[in-house]
């Protein structure tokens, strides 16, 4: 049973101007299953506590985990974690949590991963765990993001070192110059073109803002995918969880 434990910030990386990956040292951490999350707890000096759930971004490994936190303006937890949390500072974490929105590395079935904004974080963990374990399952990733400046894990997600992992970037507000698709919402046509056909009975993982997740899941069902093969995780209305 997970219990609260202390995590110390070891290093960090900026993914975008408002999203920061936290490399946390957690002695005794036994690893996780890709897709799982942790609860992070902040405690004020007066004893007030606030908790939020954040997906794990890294591959499984001992004593260390990475979270990517998107700044939610006016939020209670993310402004601290993104803007003030310094190497050596500590928070409490509980996890790994969740046994449903997870990918089993031994599963040979093809996988469709659909992420909206920071919803790409647990999907990145799946790709990194596939890499770490030498997995062969075919992955197709559809990553919906506002603009090129909002892209997480550039140079890592979709790296040439991951044969069998295709990444499609669906820009919603502004696309790079010369883009044929332009900028628009991720559509059923995009899911049809860049996912796997329903006849392949892929596992589908959808993560992101609530409206995005529900629209994509409906689109996958409309394309004939078995609802029981679609796993969803809703982040709510904000950019982060």
């Amino acid at each position: 049973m997970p219990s609260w434990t202390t995590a110390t910030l070891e290093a960090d990386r900026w993914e975008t101007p408002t999203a920061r990956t936290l490399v946390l040292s957690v002695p005794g951490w036994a690893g996780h299953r890709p897709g799982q999350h942790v609860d992070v707890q902040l405690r004020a000096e007066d004893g007030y506590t606030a908790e939020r759930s954040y997906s794990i971004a890294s591959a499984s490994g001992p004593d260390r985990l990475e979270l990517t936190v998107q700044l939610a303006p006016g939020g209670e937890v993310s402004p601290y974690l993104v803007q003030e949390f310094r190497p050596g500072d500590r928070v409490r974490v509980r996890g790994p949590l969740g046994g449903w929105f997870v990918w089993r590395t031994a599963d040979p079935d093809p996988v469709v991963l659909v992420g909206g904004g920071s919803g790409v974080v647990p999907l990145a963990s799946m790709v990194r765990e596939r890499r770490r374990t030498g997995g062969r399952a075919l992955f197709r990733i559809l990553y919906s993001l506002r603009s090129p400046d909002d892209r997480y894990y550039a140079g890592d997600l979709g790296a040439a070192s991951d044969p069998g992992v295709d990444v499609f970037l669906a820009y919603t507000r502004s696309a790079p110059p010369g883009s044929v698709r332009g900028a628009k919402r991720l559509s059923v046509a995009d899911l049809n073109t860049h996912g796997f056909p329903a006849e392949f009975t892929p596992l589908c993982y959808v993560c992101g803002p609530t409206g995005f997740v529900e629209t994509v899941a409906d689109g996958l069902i409309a394309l004939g995918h078995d609802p029981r093969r679609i796993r969803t995780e809703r982040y709510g209305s904000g950019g982060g969880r």
Partner: protein
Amino acid sequence: MTRPTRLDGNVLAGPLSEVFSVDLTAAARLCSVCGDEGVCAQLLVYADGPGLVARCPGCAVLVLRLVRTPHGVVLDLGGTGCVTIPLGEEP
């Protein structure tokens, strides 16, 4: 008035781990009201109030309420339905 933020049952994993020794979010659930078959991770969860409220995605019946008070955790499992919990093996 802002619309309540709808999350899902994945977010229950941490709070429920304070009470149960198994992960309930991966457990299959048969709704006793509408017959919806899914897993607890697919419940619709509203977290805007002082606690967490989970509803059935099929019929919106109130499945579970969880509130932490200074004295403990108040857990209302009134509409849970029938839950099948995988033991041992990973789902």
